């Protein structure tokens, strides 16, 4: 799994790539928490390059979501491939996370500044 991070206004967009499972869920969690710490308004996790996420990876996202809520920061998810969307639906995480079709939509939902910065980039 690799991470690609970019900043739009006060928001951080993080794009992991590959599989998220027991072997790297801890690193995924640390990357999400680090992104949250550096973001002033919100984190968007774009899963467009993720082809599989296991329960351990979803758990990492739950921990990040809780951390975002307690810090009053936004947390949104975007770009789910059809298979990852199926995993979210079967596990009912579609009811837990704010899910958007594209990173742009997710940034727009979490912060107007982030959208302006994204469109200007």
């Amino acid at each position, binding site marked *: 799994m690799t991470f690609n991070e970019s900043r739009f206004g006060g928001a951080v967009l993080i794009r992991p790539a590959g599989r998220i499972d*027991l072997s790297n*869920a*801890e690193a995924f*969690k640390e990357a999400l928490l680090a992104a949250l710490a550096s973001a002033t308004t919100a984190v968007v996790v774009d899963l467009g390059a993720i082809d*599989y996420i*296991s*329960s*351990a990876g*979803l*758990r*990492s996202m*739950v921990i990040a979501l809780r951390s975002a809520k307690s810090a009053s920061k936004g947390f949104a998810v975007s770009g789910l491939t059809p*298979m990852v969307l*199926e*995993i979210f*639906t*079967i*596990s*009912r*995480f579609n*009811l*837990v996370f704010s899910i958007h079709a594209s990173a742009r939509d997710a940034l727009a939902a979490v912060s107007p500044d982030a959208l302006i910065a994204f469109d200007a980039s």
Partner: protein
Amino acid sequence: MKITFWGTRGSLPAPLSGRSVRRKLVNALVKGANRGLDTPEKAEAFCDEAMSFAEWSTFGGNTSCVQVDTGGTDYLICDLGSGAREFSLSALGKHGPAAPQTYHVLVSHVHWDHIMGFPFFVPAFIPGNHIRIYSCHPKFEEAIRGQSHAPCFPVEFSALPASIEFITLETGVPYEIAGATVTGMAQLHGGESFGYRIEHDGKTAVYTTDAEYKPDDYGLMDRTAAFFRGADLVIFDAMYSLAESISVKEDWGHSSNIMGVELCQMAGARQLCLFHHEPVNDDQRIQDILAETLRFEEITRSGDKLEICAAYDGLVLEL
């Protein structure tokens, strides 16, 4: 090894309501309209061919009781939920009250839904029967004796004419019980709970209910996969969705269908049986959860296919 499910609900019995029966009836009448279903045989064939399980049947509403038949003369069951009454009536129906039997019972823990059937366990009321109750739980004898006691029940435990023994088991130690080898494992659950691995003649069933498995507790995941290793059947607490069990209902002591699939895949188990159904879920809902679980297994499969079923009262599985 033959497994018979006598009670499959979690938490409390969930009888099918009159409204649900009517909904099934209306659905069947509409579906079968103008099909010339004028004999029981034609109607039976229509149920088999054109209706789903949730439409023509029900998953049932009794709480945990699962019979493990290893081919011997003694009986072996897991838990004494309300399904234990049905089990005991069936056993008595087979032998009649005059032929004493030996019943071995493995108790996962003492939450009420797992012991509530004992006061109605008919063999306990018949002299000559032997009932041997085993558990790794430290308070199982106290709890089972305690519920057959005034003011909660009119027949005192001490007045039961059958011979009843309580045998405490240690986790991780194999015991010979009713011709099978039984090993217990501690599980995460409020007030303690224990799973049992039951082996006989090259076949293995694991009974693991009222157990929470945390995906980021790597030690627990590994220990559990080792406990399930190569099992022919894993009877698994799938009461919640994964999202519930690792977020809003974290530490409520139950697991999900997804965790069942992942653990069985890690362990190389052959079949997963979704068990301890949430009592608010109706038949259609449980059937939908089963379909989703089958799909999840399909999209995550890397080795052999994992068979998956949803337990219902009356289900029989041959291993």
